[in-house]
């Protein structure tokens, strides 16, 4: 990074509004954008009177979750008022299709004021995509961890049932459960679920 480039960037800093109900993710986006030399004007979690806020803040770019219902409010501004932000993530001319697909896949939509050069927007969208993706990866990990935890609980319960009803010790109960899963081509947790269901019916 040359000094000249940095100066150039700060001279053309983009004013960005981030709308995100997830505080943590919004924080990550802000940090990323600041590192890239942009200015985050505001982060809105609550979108009451979004139109009024946008008119007051006058951002160059708005970043928002593609699944946010508030996007329809932004569409209104894009359609009804000329110098208001317009949707860009799917503008073919604003960015290459691969970026667009990645953006939507990651869950980020961007709205920019008409006339902004696509080249200036790309780094902003890149930052947002990266932050959204890392947030999504975290969520995925959390979901998997929760799933694993509940799988283990199921297996423990099934093991307990087998020990009680068939007088097995823990190791033998686990082996029986694993054999059942293998015979039926099921994951261990599914076999455990079946054992519990049958036990509920019979006991």
């Amino acid at each position: 990074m040359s000094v000249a480039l940095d100066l150039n960037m700060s001279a053309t800093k983009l004013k960005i509004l981030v709308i995100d109900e997830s505080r943590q993710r919004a924080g990550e986006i802000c940090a990323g954008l600041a590192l890239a030399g942009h200015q985050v004007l505001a982060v809105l979690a609550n979108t009451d009177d979004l139109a009024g806020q946008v008119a007051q803040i006058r951002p160059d770019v708005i970043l928002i979750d593609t699944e946010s219902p508030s996007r329809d409010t932004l569409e209104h501004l894009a359609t009804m008022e000329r110098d208001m932000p317009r949707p860009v993530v799917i503008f073919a001319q604003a960015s290459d299709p691969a970026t667009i697909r990645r953006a939507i896949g990651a869950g980020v939509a961007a709205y920019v004021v008409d006339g902004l050069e696509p080249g200036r927007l790309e780094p902003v969208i890149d930052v947002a995509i990266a932050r959204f993706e890392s947030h999504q990866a975290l969520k995925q990990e959390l979901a998997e961890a929760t799933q694993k935890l509940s799988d283990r609980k199921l297996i423990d319960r099934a093991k307990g049932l087998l020990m009680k009803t068939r007088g097995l010790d823990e190791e033998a109960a686990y082996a029986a459960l694993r054999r059942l899963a293998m015979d039926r081509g099921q994951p261990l947790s599914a076999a455990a679920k079946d054992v519990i269901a049958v036990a509920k019916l019979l006991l």
Partner: protein
Amino acid sequence: MDGKEFSTDRGRRDFMRKSMRLGSAALAGISGLAPGGGAWAAGSDAPEKKEVRIGFIPLTDCASVVMAAVNRFDEKYGIKIIATKEASWASVRDKLVNGELDAAHVLYGLIYGVQLGIGGPKKDMAVLMGLNHNGQAITLSNQLRDKGATDGASLARLVAKKEREYTFAQTFPTGTHAMWLYYWLAANGIDPMKDVKSITVPPPQMVANMRVGNMDGFCVGEPWGNRAIIDKIGFTAVTSQEIWTDHPEKVLGTTADFAQKHPNTARAMIAAILDAGRWIDASLANKQKTAETIAQKAYVNTDTEVIVARMLGRYENGLGKSWDDKNHMKFYNDGAVNFPYLSDGMWFLTQHRRWGLLKEDPDYAGVARKVNRIDLYQQGAAAAGVALPKSELRAARLIDGSVWDGRDPKKYAAGFKIKA
């Protein structure tokens, strides 16, 4: 069609000529002879894509798409419909355009807005069929009632006093609700662009927004109008069927690209949803069952009673008046609901032009003929054994007394006293 059908000689000739080209399948439909189910399930007619993702917004009129999947009408035509709940119309549009959704339950006007690139991306789109007529409403807040505004005329008097700014919400700038709202306000002498402020709010959030005083009125699809009454927040000032009896509303929309690459899948979707609409309209019990199904969290997520009353036509306006509305929401009505009339598509263009969303007159008939896939609809209707109307145009008299018959859209669009 009950004699409401408007037949122009030209429309009729074109229609017959096209029908002839389509051959026996379409003719079987016209004469009302249904070929057996699963007509497209074999040979070269097999759907190119068997699993189709159809997006929907939580509204009563998503019912035929949902019931086509729940009641497995889709299987009969060799496809599996995966109904996908969406958070906003903007999201529906983006996912249609980038292919994440194959098709969607979508506002008629939105499809035309994208076709012409109004306020957003421009892409060639396709309307495969109409999903419903009627069943939307304009709600005014109880605060307005207390100020004496209970209908269009009294609202106009209140607005004219200019005591403060009044805000009205609709669901999407190019969509149907914006057009019903603007049309009704203008019919009552209120200029929707100058005399009041208009905002966009997603359907499921209308009632909550009115509760906190963000707007004085809104236009939205049921069940949200009825929900406002039950929650004692507002009342129904006018139903959409009073603005235009049997008006077009939601359509099954997709991209021109998808329709071109998957004509068999498109036909199968049309046939399955025709079956579902016919089933819903067939009996009170079916409507009750439909309401129970779509009330679930995965779909509209509200109480069955809130949905079912107006589905059955049992209206109560929140001001003490109740009536049986024979023009309640319809999903089939012997196929009259579903035929993609060119005049219906053109009407939205005339209103986009009227309110300045289009700066110039488009090629009304050319655009409508390109977007509304009458060819695919005819074939889907034939598979489902649904009769076709005799014209591609239909006529109606709207609430302000003006007649729309699709014959001179440019003149019609320019002929309104109040316009942008």
